[in-house]
């Protein structure tokens, strides 16, 4: 009889420890998601900060290309207004399309392309695009880990109990995958 009692206690302790460790690991994963999202926002802002300089430089050489410049400025504003990762992703895709249009237009202005400030800006933009890409990848990886965990049994019970909800991916549709190419 004593043996059964001992086993029961051991099981209870084990369950308790499991629960605690599951909960803590969920918390850790959620924080990782939040943290990597903060990084996404940081690099999006970094790119947004480059835009005024870009617009001014382009205006200096291609003042008639108002439409393209307005497109970019508006797209940038739209990113600021986004709230959920999905919205951000859409706004981001639009922005990148607008930026792409700008690069196409710039091809007609060799003097602009030769301008040192502009070429530095292009490097910065390319680097920032890459950072966005990396931040996005890391965020989505964190989300995947987290979402999988809260959906798996038996952690899903715990997740529901404590309100761990599924997170949204920072997703871009395949057709929007065209990251603007920067030619050197």
């Amino acid at each position, binding site marked *: 009889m004593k043996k059964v009692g001992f086993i029961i206690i051991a099981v209870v302790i084990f369950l308790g420890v499991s629960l605690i460790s599951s909960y803590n690991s969920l918390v850790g994963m959620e924080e990782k998601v939040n943290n990597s999202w903060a990084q996404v926002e940081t690099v999006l802002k970094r790119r947004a900060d480059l835009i005024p300089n870009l617009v001014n430089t382009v205006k200096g050489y291609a003042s008639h290309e108002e439409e393209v410049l307005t497109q970019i400025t508006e797209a940038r504003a739209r990113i600021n207004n986004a709230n959920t990762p999905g919205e951000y992703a859409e706004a981001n895709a639009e922005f990148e399309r607008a930026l792409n249009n700008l690069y196409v237009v710039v091809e007609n202005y060799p003097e602009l392309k030769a301008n040192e400030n502009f070429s530095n800006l292009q*490097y910065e933009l390319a680097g920032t695009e*890459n950072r966005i890409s990396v931040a996005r990848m890391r965020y989505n990886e964190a989300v995947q*880990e987290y979402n999988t965990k809260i959906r798996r049994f038996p952690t899903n019970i715990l997740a529901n109990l404590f309100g761990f909800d599924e997170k949204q991916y920072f997703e871009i549709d395949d057709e929007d995958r065209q990251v603007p190419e920067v030619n050197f």
Partner: protein
Amino acid sequence: MRKKYLSILCMLILILNITSYAAELALPRPTSDFYVYDESNILNKEAKEYIIKTNEELYKKTGAQIVVVTIDSLENVDINEYAVKLFEEWGIGSREYDNGVLMLIVTEERQIWIEVGYGLEGALPDSRVGNIIEDSILPYFREGEYSDGIISGFNDIIDEVEEEYSIELNRNIINEDLYRIDGYETEGDIFSGLRGILVAIGIVVFLVIDFKFFNGFLTYSLIFRGRRFGGYSSRDYRNNRGGGGRSGGGGAGGRW
């Protein structure tokens, strides 16, 4: 009898979970010298030695690492993605300062990308790196002078790093092993080794108890937990002296 086989099987599965997941991307492993990986064989011997010796001094003084990697082909992966993943996998630069730089040259696709760790983004902003590539490296590459081009870029990068840390490196090729360092990692390595042993012992004890009392139920449920144990060993390289630095994707590239 069957229980015994089951427990061995479970041990194997658990061990497999412990070792790091194979990357989908087949990344090369560093050489024992770490700082140079020359798959395409475009660096001459002096260049390699120069890179290694300079790095050893640099690492000793600042923890920074500037790794040169040449590969033949990206095999349909974006150079940016490849560079970031390689940087991450090898942990270039020290963990405390994230001061690593990766110079990645792909000879078949004729692309270069220089990835800069978080800690050196100030000294090497994207435009600076872009200009280094355009002005110091590509002119050589276009003439097929790969070794000279790489060294030229490498030196420019060292210039910026020296300035960042207000140091000066002795850039002559050093013949004696004056700066040979044993045990590049400080407390990190030994600790993880000990931890590894403790974890292994814990697992064995756990398995014994589990199979004796619970017929393996606990082990099975733990396996479904996935990555619980899978975190620590991917950085646990001993021979390769990656300091554990990280990068966010900053840097610049070029084609020739």
